[in-house]
């Protein structure tokens, strides 16, 4: 029976990998997700045949059934209710539950172990530390994204790093103690308590704009905690899946860091750009050079445009302007223009977020272009519409080595024939620096409030 169960686990793991392979293209992604879900069903059914589960009789099956029903209802309500703009919060919570489950599984295994061996003890300590850091770190990340109790901005206090280092050392010390004397569960729960505090303290210095990295990293931790729980139970299904998820989270955090040209350490310590602030002031940059425009003027410009690229930033999502933008794009296409979207990797609040928000507004996915794909083409673009984005189109990233965003890859919209920036005011973005693009010869500013401004533009284009 044991080998049958393990073969079913292997099949489930293969189905998970196939599911991830399916995500390499939107055409195959839905089927991939269904394959992975069936793999999960298979793994659960296989576990129902486990010797311990069979031995637990009706009571065991009842409890498992009730727990699954409760979790399924909560999960389904979350999944069906959540707004696409709140997806980072949802993923943060799911990361946390994954970490929490690993802490509890390792705790239960330690409690039941008669003569725990070295592998079980070390893996239990690892599950406890990583799982607790993930659980509490994710709750803090959720809270920061939601802006409930804690502000989105970084929280710093004196000796923060020193305190974190001490807590990490205490957690390691408790791990050693647990390995040397596994007779009492108390050591394990002390370890979990210390790691919990560490999880909170590690996440509070990370700023709201850096949350994509934090959420991706916590995603990775939740996988590693699961893999550690797999070592506790000697369960290959957990080990394989945990390492897949661990790898995924790490790759995504690296991509996000690269897109902001910051090191992971820099993000985790909550340091904003280290560049000096002695660059040109806003007044010097903008004085007398900023040209403001009206919807009618833009409509005339768009009327003759053959190729239009829209660059969305998070400001677009905040003002719920996705649908109005989609309407504008359809309208321009009906007039014979080609309309595409240039998406910066950090345009949303988590990896790939902006793509989901635009897909929700019915923008076809083949119109959504990655930065590397669209950048060489801006020279052939007639009009670029920048909506609610700022730092990701700031040319200082390429020209001023002392700027806080120096070296960050940007969308090079300045190469287009004309650029229209829709923004409420000339206020700076997260980096807190002026944007010389706004004062460029080929740039027009269209001041207005997201959704209403786009709607006014739609009306003007229709009228023209």
């Amino acid at each position, binding site marked *: 029976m044991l080998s049958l169960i393990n073969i079913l686990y292997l099949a489930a793991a293969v189905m998970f990998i196939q599911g991830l392979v399916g*995500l390499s293209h939107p055409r195959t992604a839905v089927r991939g997700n269904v394959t992975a879900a069936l793999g999960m069903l298979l793994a659960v059914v296989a576990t129902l045949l486990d010797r311990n589960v069979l031995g637990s009789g009706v009571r065991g099956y009842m409890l*498992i059934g009730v727990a699954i029903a409760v*979790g399924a209802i909560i999960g389904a309500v979350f999944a069906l209710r959540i707004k696409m703009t709140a997806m980072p919060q949802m993923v943060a919570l799911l990361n946390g539950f994954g970490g929490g489950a690993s802490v509890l599984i390792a705790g239960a295994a330690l409690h039941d172990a008669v003569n725990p061996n070295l592998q079980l003890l070390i893996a239990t300590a690892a599950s406890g530390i990583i799982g607790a850091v993930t659980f509490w770190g994710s709750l803090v990340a959720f809270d920061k994204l939601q802006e409930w109790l804690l502000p989105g901005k970084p929280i710093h206090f004196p000796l923060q790093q020193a305190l974190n280092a001490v807590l990490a050392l205490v957690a390691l010390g408790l791990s050693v103690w647990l390995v040397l004397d596994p007779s009492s569960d108390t050591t394990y729960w002390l370890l979990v308590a210390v790691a919990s505090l560490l999880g909170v303290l590690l996440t509070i210095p990370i700023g709201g704009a850096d949350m994509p990295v934090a959420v991706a990293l916590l995603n990775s931790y939740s*996988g590693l905690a699961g893999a550690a729980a797999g070592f506790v139970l000697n369960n290959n299904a957990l080990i394989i899946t945990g390492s897949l998820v661990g790898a995924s989270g790490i790759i995504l955090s690296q991509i996000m860091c690269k897109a902001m040209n910051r090191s992971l350490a820099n993000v985790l310590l909550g340091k904003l750009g280290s560049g000096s602030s002695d660059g040109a002031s806003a007044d010097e940059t903008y004085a007398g050079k900023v040209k403001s425009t009206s919807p009618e003027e833009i409509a005339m410009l768009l009327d003759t445009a053959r190729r239009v690229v829209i660059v969305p930033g998070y400001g677009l999502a905040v003002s719920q302007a996705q649908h109005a933008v989609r309407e504008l794009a359809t309208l321009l296409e009906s007039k014979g223009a080609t309309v595409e979207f240039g998406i910066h990797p950090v345009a949303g609040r988590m*990896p790939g977020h902006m*793509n989901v928000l635009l897909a929700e507004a019915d923008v076809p996915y083949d119109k959504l272009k990655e930065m590397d794909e669209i950048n060489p083409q801006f020279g052939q673009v007639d009009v670029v519409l920048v909506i609610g984005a700022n730092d990701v189109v700031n040319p200082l990233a390429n020209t001023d080595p002392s700027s806080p965003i120096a070296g960050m890859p940007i969308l090079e919209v300045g190469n287009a024939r004309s650029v229209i920036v829709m923004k409420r005011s000339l206020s700076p973005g997260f980096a807190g620096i002026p944007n010389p693009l706004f004062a460029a010869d080929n740039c027009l500013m269209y001041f207005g409030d997201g959704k209403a401004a786009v709607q006014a533009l739609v009306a003007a284009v229709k009228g023209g």
Partner: protein
Amino acid sequence: METFISALTIFVLAVFVGVFVIKRVPPLLHTPLMSGSNAISGITIVGAMISIATPSPVSTIFGFIAVVFATINVVGGFLVTHRMLGMFRKKE
């Protein structure tokens, strides 16, 4: 020691498979990738079910909560991923 080495072998090889497969996922689908990987990390449900089934009441309670957590991951993760992927349409 033998079991540990074979578990470690599986872990290391799976990390390589993971890196290989994940790198092929385009940025377009990175959000569904994260929610989908959350769903499959709900595989901890398997370990949690075994904890429920042990005779000790303490482990049963831990296992029960862990099954609830893991199921939220599984059901919430797969459903929300399905919902998102349904939005990615090609131009008609």
